[in-house]
């Protein structure tokens, strides 16, 4: 079927397991590796291993970090009063880019979806509850739920708010609607209708 040697084939196989990488790209990447000097490849493979060896979840917010407590949770400049709850670590990066949020985060690492067999125990909900019930928990005044506006996101929001309600903490969710800088006429009907639904007083 193919003329590649086993080691090369192995590498191509591994590359093609990566997201967005097809067989052809995987082959190109593998061939590229064969041409690199040895120290470069060593550096590359060390970088890969270090991800697994050194990265861990932050003890507080469950974001990925090299330390016991991540830089955001450790920063004295960030407020303990507001916690923003997100699905994945990349959502933290997205919100951080805005430079507008000065609170802290909590990363769920997934979302409740019985269809995919993901229940409350499979994501970092108990960690969140422990955090809210812990000593710094009393400082928390508001939880911002920044989950995706899908059925799974919405029901996770409803579930979390049921759990958190007895704790008497203000719960908010991010708004949804028309993207900034776009024209109303280009918005699709559903987004527009939901934006109408979520209108606010001027």
């Amino acid at each position, binding site marked *: 079927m193919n003329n590649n040697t086993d080691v090369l084939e192995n590498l191509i196989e591994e590359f093609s397991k990566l997201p967005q990488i097809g067989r052809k790209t995987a082959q190109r990447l593998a061939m590229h590796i064969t041409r690199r000097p040895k120290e470069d490849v060593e550096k590359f493979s060390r970088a890969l291993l270090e991800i697994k060896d050194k990265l861990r979840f932050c003890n507080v917010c469950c974001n990925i970090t090299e330390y016991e407590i991540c830089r955001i949770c450790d920063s004295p400049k960030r407020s303990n009063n507001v916690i923003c709850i997100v699905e994945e670590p990349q959502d933290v990066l997205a919100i951080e880019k805005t430079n507008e949020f000065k609170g802290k985060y909590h990363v769920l690492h997934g979302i409740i979806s019985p269809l995919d067999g993901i*229940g409350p125990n499979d994501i970092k909900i108990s960690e969140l509850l422990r955090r809210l019930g812990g000593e710094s928990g009393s400082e928390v005044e508001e939880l911002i739920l920044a989950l995706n506006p899908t059925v799974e996101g919405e029901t996770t929001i409803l579930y979390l708010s*049921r759990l958190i309600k007895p704790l008497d903490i203000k719960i908010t969710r991010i708004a949804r609607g028309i993207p900034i800088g776009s024209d109303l006429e280009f918005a*699709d*009907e559903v987004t527009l209708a939901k934006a109408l639904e979520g209108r606010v007083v001027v």
Partner: protein
Amino acid sequence: MILKKILLKNFRNYSGQEIIFNDKFNFIYGNNGHGKTNILEAVSFTTFGKSFLGAAEADCVKFGEKEFFIESDFLNDLDNEDRLVINYNSETRSKSISRNKEKVSSFSSEIFGRYPIVFLSPHSLNITYGNPSDRRKFFDILISQSSRLYLDYLKELAKILRQKNALLKNYTVFKKYSRSQFEDLVQSYNEKLITVSANVIFKRLNFLKEFDSYFSNNFSMLTVEEHEGSISYNSDATGETDPLKSQIDFDEICRKMKTAIDNRLDDEIKRAVSLCGPQRDDYIFRLKKSDPEKNDMSKGFDLKNFASQGEHKTFLVALKLSEFDILKDKKGTNPVLLLDDVLSELDQSRVSKIISHLKEYGQIFLTTTDRSYLDNLGEFYDEKEISVFEIEEGKVLD
């Protein structure tokens, strides 16, 4: 809107056929099994992305061939031409649809609801005879064509139900969550389900209210006797509701929905499946005869159980013509009317009533085995307003 031309390749029993249609009346006749309906089915494929008859794509490929191809040219009221092409390959099981050479997905707004078509065939009798799901489907498609938001609610509803069913199954069958965890989870799903369900029911009731004025006009046009037809909505939450007589209040629907869903929870847990919501609702067609001695029921009798075949057909034709009228008003253009072998189903007095009204309906396609209907049409159409196609063995005879 006008369908100017259609080109069929390896579709059903057509190996290759181009047909240029008349802007007014297209009279398609031929013996049974020669391919009259196939032409109408092809039209439904290009505008809906699937068959009106519910046939699988693979069954539509000509025997012994691998793929079919349908190209249709529409002309809108502003004289712009749109070319829709659909291609299905049974080996790769892939379907591709394009509009003016640009690929589109079948349910994108590029296609859906853009080329309004009303299709009436003996198959449509499922709407009055069949299951609640047939009636829901009829109205769902109709409402979705004028409300994208409604279509979105339906999709959301289906998603929530899939998740809730998985949740119930995980709990009851696989004993996955603790009781308190399950309670919180199922309440979260129910909360979402209640909002979406109420939105769906609210839209349906409001649509019925609007639909009724079209329907009662058409119904009285079709009936000789003083009969009255009405459509009401039946749901677990609200019971049978006549949208004309009751106040449609969103919050009220939400409250009733919540009570209904809460009441069924124990059964749902036992049976590990959702038992409550608009996915189980029904439309009830009622017929009221104005003779008070024979019929003292104030709301009329249920068509499904008590009506004669003729009454079913009249009701159906009235539904379909109302579909035409409401689409015409919403879309601002005449839908294309496809009448598949319907005249033979009706008695002569109704046939002449329908034919005398056909002229109001824009472009029409009619299939029949009986050429003699052509004589009736002559009264209402000029010679050049009618094109006659004789079909034999998957070919249009010259």
